[in-house]
């Protein structure tokens, strides 16, 4: 800054007195040069404004002078002064200069800021004649042009020039882009030059204004995009300064001075917005629970194991919502607003059980106090509304029960649809599986060594996964043998499935027989459970062994395995439900008699009371709720069964992990020191994580929850706890005790197979629950629906009592079969239509994929013989570490020309613009050498660049840029 002030001052002084004294002018010019050399480039901003006062003066003088010297249009603005100044400064020494200019100028198509400065310097020093000038003008871009026809443009150019000088003085190179812009502008300008000639006295004509504005816009664009240029910092700074100076200077002149502030404001806001987005993104990621845990597992065990944990997390999320509904709308209202424990029979432990109701073993069986708690269906009262809020608990109970299924169905299907959207199938990885992994998988943000280790592991794992996929693709042996083996494997497995199915059926039959007998051995009592668990123990490994024959890719093998074990487990489910329905039926029979007995006992009690007290007037005290005879309450019994099953399932799976994995790992690890063979590598080894078993366990567990949640609202809470704990427990177990699979494989991108299993289970568990709700009569003395013929009567009741009458009629119409059947028909038709549409889309998709593949091949072929020469490549080269230290490899100039001209049109490599480029090459061939000149040439004798080999040799014409220092 401090340097710039003197500079401009001297300049103006010089301008004023230039006609009078040549020597002073010369002196001051030297001064300008020297000061500029030292000055901070940032001074350029001020320079522009400082010079403005000279404008009129310059214009006036310029007119006279310009004509004298050549065709210089008189309408030049203040910058011309500077330019004029230069020749004049030189004039005392070099009188030929003007003439020279004309001569050299013809060749110069594009003007650059640098050359002028250089010429000055050169002329100054050498005071040489023609030869030197022409030399320079060959190398440098068309300075002379300015003198002749740059008229209107001068202002802009000169502004840049002044800055460019400084830059050059410091040995910096010029932005090629600038040159180009200017070149373009030049062409535009030349047409309007004549105009500016006519109205000479106008300092800023309309055309100039427009041009300037355009240029300012361009500069602004450059400022905005300068970060995108792959230039060295120095070069960027230089260009930026230049552009900013220009904008500052001329924006004011054009009455757009506020533009800069606005721009800065916009930039600031943009940055703030980006930061906000980033923070928000971080926050969102931080909100995803267990993301880091899962990533850690994934990095060591591959995405297949991680997919189990992701599935677990998803289940947890869904169950959390179910838990919220159940507890928020059913359990908590009942606890807060319902009658307290002990007030009515259903909320009291019967007298007979009271002695043992608090025993541990009884509680563990969910009898005693557990049975008469809010956890189970029986506890809820059938009061229509409870509390001050008139909360309709029975209605809410039914709605939550149905809503659970509705919500689950919706979520599962939505997730499936979303996954299908994302995934689009397995193994469909696109074209760059390995290349992407290679070049884009490392996260440069990682700054923590632990994270880095995980990342290394995960990258290695993912490479291995892809290698497995690839090897699978490359494999091709005897297809017939493989087919035969697969058919045989499927046959074997079908056989064993059928066998186990029959076994279960047989055992269930027998157990029904046994149910009527009392003289049973221990085995006969537990036969069903024993057989079931034996099957569960033996079959999965058997299936796995058989599956070896098939030799599928592990991912597909996993699916088969899942499907087969699923079929096996269905038998389990089927027996369980079978037994349950038996129980319910007996209870229902039992209930009728108990109902009568209960009523009878009640009557008797009152009769006895009146009889004993002998006072008909006094009302008898109510019977103690513990003494009233109760029905069996089959709903609670069913609920207890499900809760017991769930809890035992939790115990079994946790114990399996503890013994099967942890104990095994400990033994293998520590007994290995004193064992006769290598335990780690040999027989027991460490366990692998059993994906199929765990996924199926999770799926079936969820089925139990869905079925049991209606009869035991507390089950949802238990399940949430289970999922939460098993997330931590299994994560720990897998990291601590398991080893990765032998063939780490990638999970299919969409988890839809798991989801499909879940949907199936959901459907299967929906059926019995809906069946019981719709057909079985609720117990007469327990639960929110007691006293009603059917559970759903509570809806009818609400419609009748709480809603206006016309709504009731509407509902009755809506329930009319005449309406329902057409609705179903319509849905079926819609499904059919959508299905065919999706098929059509699929076909179109395939077609497009084929086309893309073709296009890619074509591109490959087309590129086969091209050497990639484009601007970006050149920039790349430009960035190479200082070329001047390297052995020179200067190709001849014409060779480089295509690159130069490629830039305006061909911004992207691979765009189909080659033909066009060639054309351009031809048409613009002549201007090229000069266009490149200023950029590549060392900045003249005054340049501070200590660059070795900086001589203006022909080799320097290559588009490598000047030595950076």
């Amino acid at each position, binding site marked *: 800054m401090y340097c710039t002030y003197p500079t401009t001052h001297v300049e103006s002084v010089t301008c004023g007195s230039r006609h009078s004294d040549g020597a002073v002018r010369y002196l001051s010019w030297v001064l300008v040069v020297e000061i500029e050399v030292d000055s901070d480039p940032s001074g350029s901003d001020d320079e522009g404004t400082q010079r403005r006062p000279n404008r009129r003066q310059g214009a006036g003088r310029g007119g006279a002078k310009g004509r004298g010297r050549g065709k210089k249009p008189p309408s030049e603005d203040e910058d011309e002064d500077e330019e004029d100044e230069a020749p004049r400064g030189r004039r005392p020494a070099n009188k030929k200069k003007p003439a020279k200019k004309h001569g050299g100028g013809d060749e110069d198509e594009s003007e650059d800021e640098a050359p002028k400065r250089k010429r000055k310097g050169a002329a100054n020093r050498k005071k040489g004649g023609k030869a030197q000038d022409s030399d320079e003008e060959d190398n440098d871009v068309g300075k002379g042009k300015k003198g002749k026809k740059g008229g209107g443009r001068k202002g802009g150019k000169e502004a840049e020039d002044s800055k460019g000088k400084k830059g050059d003085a410091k040995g910096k190179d010029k932005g090629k882009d600038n040159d180009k812009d200017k070149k373009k502008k030049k062409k535009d300008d030349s047409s309007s030059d004549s105009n500016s000639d006519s109205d000479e006295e106008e300092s800023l004509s309309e055309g100039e204004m427009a041009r300037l504005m355009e240029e300012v816009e361009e500069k602004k664009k450059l400022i905005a995009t300068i970060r995108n240029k792959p230039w060295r910092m120095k070069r960027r700074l230089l260009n930026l300064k230049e552009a900013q100076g220009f904008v500052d200077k001329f924006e004011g002149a054009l009455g757009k001075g506020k533009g800069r502030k606005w721009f800065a404001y916009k930039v600031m806001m943009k*940055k703030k917005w980006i930061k906000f987005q980033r923070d928000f993104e971080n926050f969102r990621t931080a909100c995803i629970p267990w993301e880091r845990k899962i990533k850690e597992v994934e990095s060591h065990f591959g995405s297949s194991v991680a997919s189990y944990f992701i599935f677990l997390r998803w289940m947890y999320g869904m169950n959390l919502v179910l838990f919220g509904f159940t507890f928020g709308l059913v359990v908590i209202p009942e606890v807060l607003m319902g009658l307290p424990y002990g007030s009515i029979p259903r909320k009291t432990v019967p007298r007979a059980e009271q002695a043992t109701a608090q025993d541990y073993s009884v509680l563990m069986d969910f009898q005693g106090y557990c049975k008469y708690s809010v956890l189970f269906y029986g506890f809820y009262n059938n009061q229509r509304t409870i509390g001050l809020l008139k909360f309709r608990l029975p209605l809410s109970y039914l709605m939550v029960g149905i809503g659970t299924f509705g919500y689950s169905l919706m979520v599962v299907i939505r997730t499936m649809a979303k996954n299908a959207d994302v995934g689009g199938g397995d193994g469909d990885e696109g074209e760059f599986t390995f*290349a992407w992994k*290679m*070049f884009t*998988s490392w996260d440069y943000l990682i700054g*923590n060594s632990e*994270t880095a280790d995980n990342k290394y592991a995960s990258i290695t794992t993912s490479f*291995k996964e892809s290698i497995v996929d690839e090897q699978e693709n490359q494999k091709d042996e005897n297809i017939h043998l493989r087919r035969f083996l697969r058919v045989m494997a499927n046959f074997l497995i079908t056989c064993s499935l059928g066998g186990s199915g029959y076994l279960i059926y047989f055992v269930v039959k027998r157990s029904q027989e046994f149910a009527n007998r009392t003289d049973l051995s221990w085995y006969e009592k537990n036969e069903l459970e024993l057989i079931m668990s034996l099957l569960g123990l033996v079959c999965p490994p058997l299936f796995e062994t058989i599956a070896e024959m098939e030799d599928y890719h592990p991912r597909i093998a996993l699916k088969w395995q899942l499907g087969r074990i699923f079929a096996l487990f269905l038998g389990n489910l089927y027996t369980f439900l079978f037994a349950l329905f038996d129980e319910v039926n007996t209870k229902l029979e039992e209930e009728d008699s108990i109902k009568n007995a209960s009523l009878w006992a009640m009557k008797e009690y009152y009769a006895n009371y009146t009889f004993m007290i002998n006072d008909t007037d006094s009302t008898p005290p109510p019977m103690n709720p513990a003494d009233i005879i109760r029905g069996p309450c089959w709903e609670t019994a069913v609920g207890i069964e499900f809760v017991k099953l769930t809890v035992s399932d939790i115990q079994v799976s946790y114990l399996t992990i503890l013994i099967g994995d942890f104990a095994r790992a400990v033994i293998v690890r520590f007994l290995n020191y004193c064992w006769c063979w290598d335990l780690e590598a040999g027989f027991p080894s460490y366990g692998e994580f059993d994906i199929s078993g765990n996924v199926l366990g999770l799926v079936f567990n969820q089925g139990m929850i869905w079925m049991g949640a209606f009869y035991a609202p507390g089950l949802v809470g238990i399940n949430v706890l289970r999922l939460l704990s098993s997330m931590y427990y299994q994560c720990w177990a897998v990291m601590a005790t398991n080893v990765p699979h032998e063939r780490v494989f990638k999970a299919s991108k969409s988890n839809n197979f798991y989801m499909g299993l879940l949907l199936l289970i959901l459907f299967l568990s929906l059926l019995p629950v809906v069946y019981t709700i719709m057909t079985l009569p609720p117990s007469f003395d327990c639960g929110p629906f007691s006293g009603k013929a059917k559970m759903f009567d509570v809806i009818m009741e609400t419609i009748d009592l709480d809603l206006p009458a016309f709504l009731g009629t509407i509902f009755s119409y809506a329930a009319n079969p005449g309406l329902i059947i057409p609705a179903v028909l319509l849905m079926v038709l819609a499904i059919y239509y959508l299905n065919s549409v999706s098929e059509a889309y699929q076909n179109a998709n395939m077609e497009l994929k084929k086309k893309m593949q073709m296009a890619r091949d074509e591109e490959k072929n087309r590129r086969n013989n091209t050497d990639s020469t484009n601007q970006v490549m050149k920039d790349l080269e430009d960035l190479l570490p*200082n070329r001047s230290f390297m052995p020179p490899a200067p190709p001849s100039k014409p060779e480089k020309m295509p690159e130069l001209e490629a830039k305006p049109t061909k911004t992207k490599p691979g765009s189909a613009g080659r033909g066009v480029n060639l054309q351009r090459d031809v048409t613009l061939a002549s201007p090229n050498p000069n266009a490149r000149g200023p950029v590549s040439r060392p900045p003249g004798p005054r340049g501070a660049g200590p660059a070795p080999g900086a001589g203006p040799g022909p080799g320097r014409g290559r588009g490598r840029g000047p030595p950076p220092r």
Partner: protein
Amino acid sequence: MTNADSSSFRLHGRYRELAPHLVPLDYTNNPDIRVPPTLIVTMPELKENPFRDRIVETFSEDGHGNLSFNDFVDMFSALCETSPRELKTIYAFKIYDFNRDNFICKEDLKKTLNKLTKGELSPEEVLLVCDKSMEEADLDGDSKLSFSDFENMVSKAPDFLSNFHVRI
């Protein structure tokens, strides 16, 4: 550098931190200061990066990893979050181009892979991966990746932008 301006103080602070004895606080007489690569790679932003040496070499003007402050700013400007894809692509290409011949050849791929996996893949696997990557990305069939091959490949990569940046 609109953004470098605002954070240049901080950046210079970081730069100076690396070598307080080398970097002066005032630049009035334009001293030619370069911080050697051994110091640069100790930055927490880089020290875990398998390509840290290449990054530093790429951005240094002399090609040996000595960074002047300008180079230093260059580096973080190219790696910052807001820098455009084209720029990042160019620098990524240069980083992965180990032998600086403006092509990524098989040797470069091997080096990249070994750095990425800490050499845990077997030689056959390395070979397979390199062959496959080359086959995927090499459009002109010269069995080395030119910049346009590279750009074409990276432009379709989903997480290049999110992964190829450093926060400072």
